[in-house]
C-alpha cells in the first residue's frame, strides 16, 4: 500500500498549552479516515501543521515518500480548513482560476469541478454574494481542482443548515466512492461513522486510538433478543460460554459477547434448547458508544 502521510511524534505547544502532544500515525492510500476528538482536542492544529500554516514545535511529518518539499507536495493535496477563504471581490470562476495558477493545474477543470458541487450556474457571481453552504461547496470544488491524491476536510459541515449538511455529505460520499483518499476531521460522530473506514481519536492533543473503525473496541458486539419463554432464554444464555453479560429491558434482552459468535450459530443453539425467538438482531456498538467508552476508560 502507498503511504500518503506519515506523522512522527508531532508536537505543538502554544506557550504552556500542549495543543498536540507526540502524535504519530500514517494515512494509507484509498481509505477514508476520520480524525475524532472533542472541540479543542488539537485536530485543526494537527492539520495546520501538515498543511504548512502552523509551525511544529518538534517532531516530523512527511508527505508521500518524503522526497519533495511540503509546498510542492501540497499541490497534490486538496484541503479545506475551518471556513472557506477566497477573494470576496472575485467571482467563483476567477477564484478557481487563481487556485489553478498556484497549483499549476489546467484551468479547463474549473467547469467540471463546479458541476460536481452544483455551482456551475453561479460561476460568474462574486464570492461575497454566496451563502455559507455555497462557499463551502466552492471550497470543495477548489480542493478538487488538481484531482488530489488526498482530500482533507476540517469540519466541512460546521454552521450549515440540514440541507447544506446533506449536500456536503453526498458530495463527500461520491468523492470517496471514486477511490480518493479522504481525511475528515470532525467532532460529529455520526458524520464520521457514515463515511469513514478508519479513525484516529485524539483528546487533549494525545492519540487514543488509530486504526479501522471495526477494531476500535475489543468488543464483538451484542444481540438483541425477544421470545415467549424469557426465563428459559436467560438461563440458556447464562450457560453459553461466549456471553459476558445480560441486560433486560421491557422484555427485550440484550446479551453482550466476549467471543465472536454468529447470529446463525446462536439461533440454532437456542432452537436445540426448544427456544423459538420472535426477535433476533446482532449489532455493534455505535461509534458514539465506543468513543464514550474509550474516553471513559481513560478517566
Amino acid at each position, binding site marked *: 500500500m502507498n503511504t500518503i502521510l506519515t506523522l512522527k511524534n508531532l508536537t505543538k505547544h502554544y506557550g504552556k498549552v500542549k495543543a498536540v502532544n507526540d502524535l504519530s500515525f500514517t494515512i494509507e492510500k484509498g481509505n477514508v479516515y476520520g480524525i475524532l476528538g472533542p472541540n479543542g482536542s488539537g485536530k485543526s492544529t494537527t492539520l*495546520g501543521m501538515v*498543511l*504548512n*500554516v*502552523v*509551525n511544529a514545535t518538534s517532531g516530523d511529518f512527511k508527505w508521500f515518500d518524503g522526497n519533495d*518539499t*511540503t*509546498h*510542492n507536495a*501540497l*499541490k497534490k*493535496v486538496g*484541503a479545506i*480548513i475551518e*471556513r472557506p*477563504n*477566497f*477573494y*470576496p*471581490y*472575485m467571482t467563483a470562476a*476567477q477564484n478557481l*482560476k*487563481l*487556485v489553478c*495558477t*498556484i*497549483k*499549476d493545474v489546467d484551468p479547463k477543470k474549473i467547469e467540471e469541478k463546479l458541476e460536481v458541487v452544483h455551482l456551475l450556474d453561479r460561476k460568474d457571481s462574486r464570492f461575497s454574494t454566496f451563502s455559507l453552504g455555497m462557499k463551502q461547496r466552492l471550497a470543495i470544488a*477548489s480542493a478538487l481542482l488538481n484531482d488530489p491524491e488526498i482530500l482533507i476536510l476540517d469540519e466541512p459541515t460546521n454552521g450549515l443548515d440540514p440541507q447544506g449538511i446533506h449536500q456536503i455529505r453526498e458530495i463527500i460520499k461520491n468523492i470517496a466512492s471514486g477511490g480518493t483518499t479522504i481525511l475528515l476531521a470532525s467532532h460529529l460522530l455520526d458524520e464520521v461513522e457514515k463515511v469513514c473506514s478508519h479513525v484516529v481519536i485524539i483528546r487533549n492533543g494525545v492519540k487514543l486510538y488509530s486504526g479501522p473503525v471495526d477494531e476500535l473496541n475489543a468488543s464483538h458486539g451484542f444481540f438483541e433478543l425477544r421470545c415467549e419463554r424469557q426465563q428459559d432464554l436467560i438461563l440458556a444464555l447464562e450457560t453459553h460460554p461466549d456471553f459476558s453479560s445480560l441486560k433486560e429491558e421491557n422484555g427485550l434482552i440484550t446479551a453482550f459477547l466476549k467471543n465472536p459468535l454468529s447470529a446463525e450459530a446462536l439461533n440454532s443453539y437456542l432452537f436445540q434448547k426448544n427456544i423459538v425467538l420472535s426477535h433476533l438482531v446482532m449489532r455493534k456498538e455505535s461509534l458514539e458508544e465506543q468513543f464514550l467508552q474509550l474516553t471513559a476508560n481513560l478517566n
Partner: protein
Amino acid sequence: MLRLLSIEFYKLKHSRSSKVLSIAYFVILSFIALIASIEFNLGDIQIRIADQGIFNFPFIWHFNTWVASTLKFFLAIVIVSMISNEYSNRTLKQNLIDGLSKKEFMLSKFYTVVVFALLSTLFMFIMTLILGYSFSDYTEFSIVTREMEFLLAYFLKLVGFFSFCLFLGVLVKRSAFALGFLFVWWIFENIFYGILRWKGSAELADSIVQFFPLEAMKNLINLPFQRLNFIEAAANQLQADIQIDYALHWYEALIVLVWIFLFIYGAYALLKKRDL
C-alpha cells in the same frame, strides 16, 4: 518568477480599488506636465514656470523625479492593502494550503513592487524626454543624457519605499494601522533628527539620521529648488553660499539597498515564524 508575478497581478487585476488607485497614480504623474502651463504675474513682470529653467536638461531629470517621488503614497496604499487583504480575507492561509510556499508568497509581492517601480520609472523617462525636448534650452545629446542617474535613484527610492510598506503590511496586518505606523515612523525620524541637532550638532544629526530608512530614501534625490536659475541668481547677489550636495552617491544607494534587503527578508522571517 513569471508564475509568481502572474499570480499577484491576477489578484490586483480583479480588485477595483487597487485598479482605481494605480490608474489615478499614473494619471496624476502625467499632470507634472501641467506645471509647464503655470503662469502668474508679479507686479509688471509675467513669470512663466516653464521659462525658469526647470525643464532644462539635465536639471529636468532631477526636478521631475523629485516631484514624481512625492506621489508614491498612492501606490503605498495599494501595496499595504495588497498584504493586509491577504490577512483579513485569510487567503494567505488558503494560498499556502494550495501549495504556495511562504517564500514564493513574499517573492510574488516583491516582484510586483519592483514591476510597479519599473513602470513608474519608465513612465518618468518618457515624460521627461517629451517635456525636455519641448521646453529645454539645450537639447544636445550629451547634455540630455547627463544626470540620468536620477532615474536610477528614483527607481531605488520607489523600491525602497514600497519594500518598507510591504514590511509594515506584514508586521501590522491591517492597512490603516500600517499606513499610520509609516506616518509615526516619519515623525519619529524627524524628532530624532531634531534632538540630535539640538543636543549635538547638525553634522552629527546628518551623519546618524542618513542611515534611517526614510531619510536614506530622501537623500537619494535631494530637494531640487536651490538649483533653479532665479534662486541661484538671488543667492549670488546676496553672496550667500548654498552649495548643497545634490548628487547621487554610491553609499546613499547602498544604504537603501541594505534597507530593501532587510525589509523583504524581515517580512519573510516574520511570515515564516508566525502560525496562521
